[in-house]
């Protein structure tokens, strides 16, 4: 069965990669000292942790993207029966792309495809 095959491959590679990292870490005896752990900032030391409430400059784009993604999900089964259904499916796609295009145009007009 294809799924089990894919999952086996996934599992094997992940396990192997983790093992490699573990073995390599074991092989070297030297400990990572505190001064080595300081994140690289060109020689400077940070004042705080880097983990912050990171201001995502494209947040509206991600919301539009999610809606897009949902629409896309209908298109895969549609694609399979496209030739069988013929013109009806073509009209279907027309409506689809129309909706998506309106979405893009609106987002573009509101300027959400830029860093805000």
């Amino acid at each position, binding site marked *: 069965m294809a799924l089990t095959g894919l999952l086996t491959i996934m599992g094997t590679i992940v396990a192997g990669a983790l093992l490699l990292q573990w073995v390599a870490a074991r092989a070297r005896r030297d400990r990572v000292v505190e001064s080595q752990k300081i994140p690289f900032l060109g020689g400077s030391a940070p004042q705080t942790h880097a983990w912050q409430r990171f201001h995502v400059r494209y947040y509206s784009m991600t919301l539009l993207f999610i809606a897009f993604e*949902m629409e896309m999900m209908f298109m895969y089964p549609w694609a399979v029966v496209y030739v069988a259904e013929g013109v009806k*499916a073509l009209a279907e796609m027309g409506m689809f792309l129309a909706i998506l295009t309106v*979405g893009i145009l609106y987002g573009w007009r509101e300027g959400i495809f830029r860093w805000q």
Partner: protein
Amino acid sequence: MNVTDIAFWIFAAIAVVSGWRVFCTDSMVRASFLLMLSFIAVGLIMVLLNAPYLGIATVFMMAVEMMVMALFMVMYMMNPAGLNPMMMVHQHRFSIAAGVFLFAALAGLIIVTRFASNPVAPGTEVVAGLGKELLGDSMLIFETAGVTLLATMVASVILSSRSGRFGAADTGSVPPPLEPGGEPAGRQPEQGGGHAHHHH
């Protein structure tokens, strides 16, 4: 107990355990992606139930949606990485009780219900069937969903976007006071932090 059964139990365990861990971790990012893991396991179970498209589409959707959710959770939650441990749930006694009760109830229902057993014959074109349904009886639902999603796009942009064709969303806006008629509280957009600087 064949391979499918074993796989089912493994996925089921992953789904439940990772779903539970979501509420035990301190890091917003870990929480999001634990939830994603739970959904992925469910999606794979759907594949076992001979719904390959729906199953893998679930994986796919949940990956991107949890990605976006992680962005927003990090942006809105204090201490997003959970460097200081914290309790993620409110009223946890009540929520634990409610959760256990609902799980038991639903599981009980599933056990007592007698499901009609008409397994899909192997080799059925399930995806094609789905497509025919979408272009057949369910056409109306499907079209409605399409338009609704467009409405969602517009609404989400209106609600979230600062930039806009009529200028910045917060020009001249003042945060409401804490008590009626009081001083505007909090950050004034004019002096504002990040939102004040945005570039083109």
